[in-house]
């Protein structure tokens, strides 16, 4: 009965009062915006990327087909249309009483999703980040958008893999090679990010770490090839090509982050780091 108050009180005309009376007399079901209440939010196992905590988008998607559950469907067609803006507060109110698995305004579908969905989501994110960064694609012009969903798993795997490959190729001092490679890459990424930040650039710390890690992928490929074939000339060619590829991958993101006059200052250390890793790959035997 108290649902009438959630209908926006626009200029009451006779037809509206008729509507309201219809609803009040229309039986026990919770009417008005309540025509959408029975349509509960979709089951919790929806494997979606966590949406930002604006109010319940999953409710909005249920609105378009209002179930014609009552005879006076003509009059009720009018109500769902003005109802949407005022719907979220009342539905949140109702849904938090009804289903125990919903939370506050933000859809907590990620809280109740099965584990396998989380794993799949993270793996897909790694693959898509890799494709965005390393391979040519239209989003490169807008670097801020490209690595929106940063993650550190990809970089972690690539750095460890590179260290392992270098350590495997080395015939002596395997442990030192690995430790040096890992420390160089990890500390290098952190320092490069700090460099950009200190140059007055606008980049987010983790996003940059993630980017520099993903750009190691070409060097990983190069290191594997060099490990399999021991020819010096081939190694130099392969390393040069992969080095160029890595630098090309990192260029738009780093250059967009800083003042154009300071682009070279930001890009040169990145290039230097990749060159030193390249030398490490060539020099290992």
């Amino acid at each position, binding site marked *: *009965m*108290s649902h*009438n*108050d959630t209908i926006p009180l626009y200029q009451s005309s006779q037809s509206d009062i008729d509507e309201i009376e219809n609803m009040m007399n229309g039986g026990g079901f919770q009417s008005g915006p309540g025509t959408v209440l029975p349509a509960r939010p979709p089951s919790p196992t929806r494997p979606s990327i*966590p949406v*930002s*905590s604006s109010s319940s988008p999953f409710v909005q998607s249920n609105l378009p087909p209002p179930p014609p559950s009552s005879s006076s469907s003509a009059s009720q067609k009018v109500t769902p249309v003005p109802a949407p803006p005022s719907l979220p*507060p009342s539905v949140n*109110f109702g849904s*938090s009483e009804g289903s*125990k*698995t*919903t*939370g*506050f305004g*933000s859809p*907590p579908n*990620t*809280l*109740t999703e099965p*584990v396998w969905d*989380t794993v799949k989501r*993270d793996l897909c994110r790694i693959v898509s980040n890799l494709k965005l960064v390393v391979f040519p694609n239209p989003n490169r012009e807008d670097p*801020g958008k490209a690595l*929106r*969903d*940063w993650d550190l*798993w990809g970089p*972690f795997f690539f750095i*460890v893999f590179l*260290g*392992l490959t270098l*350590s495997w190729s080395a015939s002596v001092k*395997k*442990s030192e090679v*690995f*430790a040096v490679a*890992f*420390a160089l890459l990890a500390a290098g990424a952190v320092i490069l990010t700090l460099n950009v930040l200190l140059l007055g650039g*606008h980049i*987010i*710390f*983790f*996003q940059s770490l993630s980017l520099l890690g993903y750009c190691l992928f070409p060097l990983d490929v190069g290191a594997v090839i060099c490990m399999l074939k021991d020819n010096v000339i081939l190694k130099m060619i392969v390393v040069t090509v992969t080095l160029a590829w890595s630098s090309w991958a990192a260029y738009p993101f780093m250059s967009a982050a800083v003042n154009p006059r300071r682009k070279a200052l930001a890009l040169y250390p990145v290039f230097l780091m990749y060159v030193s890793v390249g030398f490490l790959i060539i020099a290992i035997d």
Partner: protein
Amino acid sequence: MDPNQPPVENYANPKTCLFHVLFKGAALAFYILSALFFNSFVIIFVVTVLLAALDFWVVKNVSGRILVGLRWWNEINDLGESVWKFESLDQESLARMNKKDSWLFWWTLYLAAAAWLVLGIFSLIRFQADYLLVVGVCLSLNVANIIGFTKCKKDAKKQFQQFASQTIASRFQSTVQSAFTLV
């Protein structure tokens, strides 16, 4: 589990609790015992850090959700700013969480961080820089989880208070409105 105990005292999610403890314990055990078996630093490093990373993922994505109903992550919004998001179940579900589960969750988190700290001090005393690296990585992963979940818990409390006051206000408003419309 002791069958004579009343069921309410047992763990509600034994498998999740097991995994929560498993990777932490495995990382610590491997690090401590590996010196006896392996001479190679590389294997120790890679396996320990891998186990610690798996533990981080499990705690953040699985046991945090299931044992205490909390979740935290970072997003970059359209303006290009980084935003930390905290998410929790509603208060009724939180109240229904198994007490033993959440006790286990928080205490193993703190104990693991303390253990890594102690191991770090040992390797500092022995001037082993590369082992310090391993300990540093594992410790930072643990601490990140602790900070994230603590913030999430505080945020959940704050949200509940806001929600409660909002609910009271909207109920009050609706009763006043209905009083006026019926007049």
